[in-house]
């Protein structure tokens, strides 16, 4: 565990990519094989199940810290991270154990079966034998909040340098459904891997934005310069759903979301068409809610994400289908090396053969002869319930991860209104102890109606200025939330807007964020609720 805690600290302390890779390599070179696999599991989001519920952990942490509960909560607000708060507040900063990461995780995994009393004893003992940094990392794993500011790419790069295997192969091998207890380092790095995991998805190919921000519009000339001739490209709508990979192998089906969650059970409507596919087929596409052949806005789909039980009502109100746009495996052959055009033909033939065309849909190609034409079509994205258009080079292979060059997304500009900040709350992590989370309001007559929360979009410098303002212009405090003197105006951007009964304003926004701080606008000139309602388009 000491090595793992040190790894975490060293990664925190290195800002440069090369330093991070060096630190990761050193870790792989020094720890025993089981620890390598556990580290890989944690760094790719495969966390152990929580053995103890967080209320109990919190209560025992308060006890171990020997301070009143309210002071513990106040400390949490300052630190902005529960695992760290617990580790800082507990006395003792001396490590008296030599257990490996694998041993600790085994203990965590077996702790779930203990009685409450045994759990407490085990946890108190564990805390006492760890130093602060180890305790912090241990708490992170224990509370299921383990995240690390290192991309999977870097980990793979380091692993690739250590093993001599290429990065794309390694990325594929750490996809899908594996456990560090049963997937051994030796298997991971063998020259030819006998793939025994039929559920394993391919790494997703992700597109870069062709236009970084809405302020930097791309002219048709620029597109021509960057992308070349329009005839070398295919275009599709950019659908706003759940990116998914759908697998049929050996008579079994698997649906993976982009976050590498196995989501097969969440979409029962898709099972019949998947079961009917030939074995050895892998599709890439977007799962969306549909009604009468038309996609529904994302918020309809949202109502069924995260539900444990899909009731009949939900299935009726938010039925899904997949819009497929790629085929990665056909007749059990990995066809990612084939061109976009060839893969498209395979996909079309598969779709043509389906008896479930309502559920297995094709993402239609947008006909266009020039960038001018496409720019005009893009303007209709919103009417198509799409986020913009996707550009794919006809000769492109299906690549690993986010790559520039062959796949681009060209999103539509966000909708926007000018709004007044009315509430502020402290952030977490890097933004701990700073007021970074704001609620915005628009005018309804002479009253301000809150309609959106936004966390992102300001620079660090702007955040400290707003923080400075909040601390000096607080009208009321409700727990962690402060009512702020309405004065600061911001332009709030969002991808979509829908009617909502759950919000006071009557609307719910999709992806609200701060576009810019309108220093030039007094609060009286912020937008009104009528402006928002007009955007509902009815």
């Amino acid at each position, binding site marked *: 565990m000491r090595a793992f805690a040190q790894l975490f600290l060293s990664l925190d302390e290195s800002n440069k990519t090369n330093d991070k890779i060096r630190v990761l390599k050193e870790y792989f070179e020094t720890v025993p094989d089981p620890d390598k696999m556990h580290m890989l599991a944690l760094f790719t989001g495969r966390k152990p199940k929580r053995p103890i519920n967080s209320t109990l952990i919190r209560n025992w942490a308060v006890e171990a810290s020997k301070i009143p509960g309210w*002071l513990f909560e106040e400390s949490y607000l300052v630190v902005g*991270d529960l695992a*760290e708060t617990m580790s800082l507040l507990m006395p003792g900063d001396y490590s008296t154990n030599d257990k490996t990461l694998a041993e600790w995780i085994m203990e965590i995994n077996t702790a779930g079966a203990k009685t409450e009393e045994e759990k407490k004893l085990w946890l108190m003992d564990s805390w006492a034998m760890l130093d602060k940094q180890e305790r912090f990392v241990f708490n992170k794993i224990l509370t299921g909040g383990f995240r690390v500011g290192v991309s999977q790419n870097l980990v793979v790069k380091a692993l690739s340098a250590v093993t001599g295997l290429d990065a794309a192969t390694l990325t594929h091998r750490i996809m899908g459904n594996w456990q560090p207890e049963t997937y051994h380092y030796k298997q991971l790095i063998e020259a030819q891997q006998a793939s025994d995991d039929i559920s394993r998805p391919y790494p997703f190919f992700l597109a870069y934005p062709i236009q970084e921000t809405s302020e930097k519009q791309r002219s048709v000339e620029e597109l021509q310069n960057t992308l070349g001739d329009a005839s070398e490209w295919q275009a599709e709508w950019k659908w706003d759903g759940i990116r998914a990979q759908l697998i049929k192998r050996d008579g079994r089906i698997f649906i993976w979301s982009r976050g590498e969650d196995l989501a097969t059970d969440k979409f029962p409507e898709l099972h019949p068409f998947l079961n009917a596919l030939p074995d050895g087929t892998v599709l890439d596409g977007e799962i969306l809610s549909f009604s009468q052949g038309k996609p529904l806005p994302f918020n309809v789909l949202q109502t069924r994400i995260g539900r444990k039980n899909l009731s009949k009502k939900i299935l009726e109100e938010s039925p899904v289908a997949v819009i497929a746009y790629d085929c990665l495996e056909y007749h059990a052959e990995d066809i990612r090396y084939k061109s976009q055009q060839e893969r498209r033909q395979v996909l079309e033939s598969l779709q043509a053969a389906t008896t479930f065309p309502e559920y297995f849909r094709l993402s239609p190609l947008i006909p266009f002869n020039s960038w001018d034409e496409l720019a005009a079509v893009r303007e209709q994205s919103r009417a198509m319930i799409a986020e913009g258009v996707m550009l794919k080079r006809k000769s492109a292979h299906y690549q690993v991860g986010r790559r520039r060059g062959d796949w681009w997304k060209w999103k539509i500009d966000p909708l926007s209104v000018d709004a007044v900040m009315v509430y502020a709350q402290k952030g977490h*992590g890097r933004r701990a102890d700073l007021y970074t989370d704001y609620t915005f309001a628009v005018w309804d007559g002479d009253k301000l109606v809150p309609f959106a929360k936004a966390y992102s979009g300001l620079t660090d410098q702007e955040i400290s200025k707003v923080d400075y303002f909040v601390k000096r212009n607080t009208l009321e405090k409700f727990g962690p939330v402060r009512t702020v003197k309405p004065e600061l105006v911001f332009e709030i951007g969002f991808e979509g807007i829908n009617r909502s009964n759950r919000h006071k304003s009557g609307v719910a926004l999709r992806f609200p964020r701060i576009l810019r701080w309108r220093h030039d606008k007094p609060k009286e000139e912020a937008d009104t609720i009528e402006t928002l309602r007009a955007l509902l388009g009815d």
Partner: protein
Amino acid sequence: MPKKPLIEFTDKGIYCSAGDFYIDPWKPVDYAVITHAHSDHAYTGHKHYLAHHLSRQVLLYRLGPIDLQTVEYGERIYRNGVEITLYPAGHVIGSAQIRVEFKGEVWVISGDYKVQHDGVCTPFEPVKCHHFISECTFGMPVYQWKPQGQVFAEINSWWRYNLANGLATVLVGYALGKSQRILQNLDLSLGTVYTHGVIENTNQALRNNGVELNPTSRITPETPREEIRKGIVLAPPSAVGTTWMRRFGPYSFGYCSGWMAIRGAKRRRAADRGFVLSDHADWEGLISAIDATECEKVYLTHGYTVTFARYLNEIGYDAHEVHTLYGDEEAESLTQAPTDEEQSNTGINNASPATGGGDLEGAGV
């Protein structure tokens, strides 16, 4: 009519009407007693200043020509029969707690303080009193300092690593206080200490005041970069990210501050290394200092005043928050409020006075 309290909190600062003087006032007054020379405590524009001897040159350097009287710790000064005595606060060189006594009633105004000995300034001395006015910049239990020997071992080993790997070493800390503490605790067998102009001016002021500091070398445009790489650079926070600092690259830059105890704050600074080193008392330090005064009442001026007051009241003290401009809120120091520590390559600092509250950037946290 109830008796007027000996010490009042006014919109100009902490005021003693019987003696007609202020302590660390933020608006111009006739007579100001100054706890220490940081910008949120020593403002410009007062007619007369009283401070500790060792603050003399730094105050003159920062505030320009002022009417300044300086005294030793323990030396008694009388104003209208009110006795004023300075006691060591252990915060920075020349920092003092102000003890005020009148007709048997004793108040102590701490200014900023730390109880840990730093080997540079006169150690903090607890003073018995009826009323204690305390800071609580780090008045949360998550702030617990390690012994400074441990921190300097970390700093020296980081410096050694950089030397071995051909990296320049840039260590950031406040010009007054932190810089001298670092300077006196570095392993000088490793190399030369190079200083930013603002820090060197402060060092020079202290040396003129008779303070013995380890040798330093002021960085000028002529200082060869290869030489700098063989030593260590001390820089103020305002130098971070400037071209002045970038020209030492490739470098590793460390940040010394109490805020580095929290991962989020550390990540915000984007320093290569964060060293938890503060010139303020930590949680235990604050409580032990307050306890040692045996006071009847505690007043908290700046820092986590709300939380700390509540806790003190729960464990049996009579604690109150008071509003001052020494930073009227938690963690103000994290904001990028205007600072008088603006970098200047020429090393000339026309110390502009702090603009409003929250100017803790200059407060040596």
